[in-house]
């Protein structure tokens, strides 16, 4: 292939560098390649240099920018001289290498949470929450809601003894479930809520839990954000969760949680909330704004105006400060609130063709985030390029929710009633 390249009019001297370890490390020597190669060509060059048994796709960076066109075009666009030896850093391509078996639900999967590595939580339109330990194996069913679950979250992970799960539903309530992951057997365990959080006057759209704390917050169609405490149950009444299999809450006394704080400020439905720091809540709303709330004072300290009704928001990236939000248009926007004087988004990703239903930052990477859209696609993004790194098109209908799981997988649920897990995504 190098012989072919030399026939081309233009050749470039390149040097491949990497931070990857042994099996993916090429010798640091200058290679002459034609300037018309694309990412695929570069990847095959590196693969041929490595002589791996199984070909491995790579992505290439020049000066911190991912190459998404032919090398010549890229150099022209960036104004980089092709005469000196070019140093190209390569990383393993961010793309799912394996598609897990879909986990079928009874209805649309409206919520998914993969923040706990051992489980995936899903919320469904049939009003049940489910805990999946692995693809296809549902260990627990969280029951009790009379309306569709709109959001689900790991509320508190206090060691190994138990996991608290919070669900938000269209029936205007939130429920807290305690699940013991140890007792996961072959059969599916049905779990009832130990605490019902009533207080919203309309459907609850979103729930988020405080990290290393005992509080959850929820955004609702009544334009408010409520902050609840999850801990009270233990002090007052201990209701063993196992007893209430298939029963509804009317038979046995249950705790009713009171609203601790109500954050008022949004003028329309609060569609999504995230709680990334101890007392900072980010929320987005159909009133086109993203707000940052101080839980202590109950005031909003930041107000980003996007111009579109927003469905989802997440905070992450560099210093966990970048705000990504998507909504009623196909553009995923990323703001940097630390930038003074401007409220314009710093990044806009516009490859989707319909509303964006979910966006999540990768927990460990500063650059990667995913977005799910009603066009049935999940896209993986890198801030260093405007094109999606990869597009997951496993869903046959709208994707309603998506999340990272275990750092290398994407879990997603959609209107095709399936939970799909795409794994093997290598993010260094």
């Amino acid at each position, binding site marked *: 292939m190098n012989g072919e390249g030399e026939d081309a009019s233009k050749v470039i001297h390149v040097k491949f560098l990497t931070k990857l370890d042994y099996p993916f490390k090429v010798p640091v020597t200058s290679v002459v390649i034609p300037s018309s190669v694309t990412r695929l060509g570069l990847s095959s060059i590196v693969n041929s240099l490595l002589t791996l048994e199984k070909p491995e796709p790579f992505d290439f960076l020049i000066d911190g920018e991912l190459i998404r066109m032919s090398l010549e075009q890229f150099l022209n666009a960036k104004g980089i001289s092709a005469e000196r030896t070019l140093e190209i850093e390569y990383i393993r391509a961010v793309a799912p290498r394996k598609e897990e078996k879909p986990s079928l639900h009874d209805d649309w999967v*409206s919520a998914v949470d993969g923040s706990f590595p051992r489980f995936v939580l899903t919320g469904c339109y049939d009003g049940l929450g489910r805990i999946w330990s692995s693809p296809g194996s549902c260990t627990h069913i969280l029951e009790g809601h009379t309306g569709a679950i709109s959001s689900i979250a790991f509320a508190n992970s206090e060691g190994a003894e138990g996991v608290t799960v919070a669900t938000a539903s269209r029936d205007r309530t939130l429920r807290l479930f305690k699940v013991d992951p140890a007792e996961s057997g072959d059969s599916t365990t049905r779990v009832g809520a130990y605490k019902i959080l009533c207080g919203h006057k*309309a*459907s609850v759209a979103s729930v988020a839990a405080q990290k290393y704390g005992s509080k959850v917050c929820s955004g609702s169609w009544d334009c408010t954000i409520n902050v609840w405490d999850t801990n009270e149950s233990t002090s007052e009444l201990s209701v063993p969760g196992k007893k209430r299999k298939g029963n509804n809450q009317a038979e046995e006394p249950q705790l009713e949680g009171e609203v601790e704080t109500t954050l008022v400020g949004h003028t329309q439905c609060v569609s999504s909330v995230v709680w990334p720091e101890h007392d900072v809540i980010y929320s987005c709303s159909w009133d086109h704004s993203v707000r940052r709330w101080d839980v202590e004072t109950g005031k909003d300290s930041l107000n980003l105006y996007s111009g*579109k009704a927003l469905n989802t928001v997440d905070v992450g990236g560099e210093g966990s400060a970048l705000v990504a939000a998507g909504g009623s248009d196909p553009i995923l926007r990323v703001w940097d609130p630390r930038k003074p004087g401007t409220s314009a988004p710093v990044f806009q990703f516009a490859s989707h063709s319909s509303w964006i239903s979910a966006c999540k930052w990768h927990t460990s990477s500063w650059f990667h985030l995913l977005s799910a859209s009603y066009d049935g696609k999940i896209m993986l993004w890198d801030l260093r390029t405007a094109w999606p790194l990869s597009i997951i098109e496993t869903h046959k209908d709208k994707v309603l929710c998506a999340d990272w799981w275990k750092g290398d997988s994407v879990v997603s649920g959609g209107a095709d009633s399936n939970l799909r897990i795409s794994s093997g995504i290598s993010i260094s």
Partner: protein
Amino acid sequence: MTKKKSEGANEDQTIETKKKSVSAVKSQKEKPVVAKQSLSGSLNSDDFDSDVFDSEDDASQRETEGGGKDSSEDELELHGHEGSDDDDEGEQVDSENEGSEEREVAEESDSSEDEVAPRNTVGDVPLEWYKDEKHIGYDITGKKITKKEKQDKLDSFLANMDDSKNWRKIYDEYNDEEVELTKEESKLIRRMLKGEAPHADFDPYAPYVDWFKWDDAIHPLSSAPEPKRRFIPSKWEAKKVVKYVRAIRKGLIKFDKPEEEPNVYLLWGDDSASDQKSKHLTYIPPPKLKLPGHEESYNPSLEYIPTEEEKAAYELMYEEDRPKFIPKRFTSLRSIPAYENALKESFDRCLDLYLCPRVRKKRINIDPESLKPKLPSRKDLRPYPNSCYLEYKGHTGAVTSVSPDCSGQWIASGSADGSVRIWEVETGRCLKVWQFKEPVKCVAWNPLPDFPILAVAIGQDLVILNTELGTDEEQQKIEELLRLGTLPEQDEAVAAIVSWLPDETYGGIKIKHFKNISYVDWHPRGDYLSAVMSAGETRGVVIHQLSMHKTQRLPIKMRGLPVCTLFHPTHRGMFIIATKKNVRVFNLQKRELAIKKLETGLREISSMAIHPGGDNLIVGSKEGKMCWFDMDLSSKPYKTLKNHPKDITNVAFHRSYPLFASCSEDSTAYVFHGKVYSDLNENPLIVPLEILRGHSTSSDRGVLDCKFHPRQPWLFTAGADSVIKLYCH
């Protein structure tokens, strides 16, 4: 001599006096001159006569008379100088003529020449008249003066020889006598011939003696006061000046005549700028032809003639590229083909020019773009719905009606397949389905947020459905409301057309009407709802009160077939009814005739919507026109928008954004910007924004309903293709 001196001193004297003096001098000098002239034979002066022809008989008499008269006359005429003259002459004559008495006499007579009349009295007549006569004339007494016998030449010669003084004798023809000149006279003549002064002792260069004493004169020469004319502006001069001024003004007097321009002009020049143009407004210069060049000559130079190769090249060219004229040579002008017809052709050309009037085309150059009204750019009017991202699929028949709930979370739809569905707006999830046996005509969500019930028009029934979306307390209230207990007494007239029944299948209320219901509308307070039965004619509109389970007929007499109704959004009692042709506004509380009648001018009204402010109304018609009424302004439409090629099925206003929309059977929906200003002087601003396509036509029907999202600038459209679409900004 002194006379001359005095004359020189007094030059101021008038011309007349000078003349006199001159004649006086003449008289002095003329005596010898005349004598001389008589010598040459050409004399005719009076004075002369007297000089020469002195008769001896009255010489003494004349002398005495002459002396007296002479002095007196001289004094009169010549200021007394003459006297001295006379004396001088007299002395001289005396001294000269001492020799003979005759001469003395003659001298004496000579001095008094003026008094002595000439002997002959014929006067100044030519002497030829007397040539053949024996007499020469008549003397003073009338006696003929006989001619003397003429001396023959011999005699005169002999006399000359005899008398040495004979040369002095001069023959006077007039008086027919001989006159003998004296020595002095001859001397005088001689001097005069030389051009000197006649008198020998006259010194022309005598020193000037100023006899007048100038210096010590006490009195002025004239004591007359200074005359006024010295210092008064002259009246005559002024008159003269005025006369000149008037003449100048009249143009009779011209000073600088303008130079006449040479009457030449460029024969072949461009006359577009000539003064002919400025004289006539409608002057149209004749079209200018290109002047013929050398190549158009009948015998052009050789270099203009194309060679054979060039001609061949012309043949190969396309007809339109070929040169129009190819130069040719002719031996003479007569051999030109056009020569034969030249006269006729030029006549035809002139005739063409004459018969073909050149008319100035009055064309106004207006940029068509400038005629367009200045509308703000669409970009500035964002947000507005423009692209479809969400579809609500599930119906199996044409979706006839949609209605979003007031929070914007849900939307209800009714379809021709008989189903009523509730959808989640955010995800497009169908939440609830009610199935009926007849096609659903209209659904309407109760406008109260805590009262989530639906009014559905199915055939003759108006069904109130509980959506079960509210909280528990709300559900309790709704269930109470929908439970039909003992029904209140209805009027007979009402009972004939409406009956309230419980709906068994879905646990709501079914209000049965006597005709098919076509339209349902809620009062903004959520208790009243109006139902329209198109076929019901005058009884076609009824108003139900849900809380009382009661029905009222319209308290107003109505004309025409009702199409749709509206409760006024702000004014509680106002009720708007659209019939097929007109829109009438009623006040239900006052039970009066129509407050206002809006003349739409449309053929058939299909729908209407009212601005949330309550003053502006849009009406859609089945001919595709939409009228905007400013109800405060006039009963005529403020604007009529003709956009749709087919029937407009529905029109809608947004509750908060300045947007309105119309949807049509042509499968499109139009979105407009409709800004109503709070300033009453400012007219509403209407800007077409977007044509929303996407629906497909099914069984010749397009978009059947459109409604705006209550809070977002989004538009729901219900299509005959059984899909509901959501257009977002």
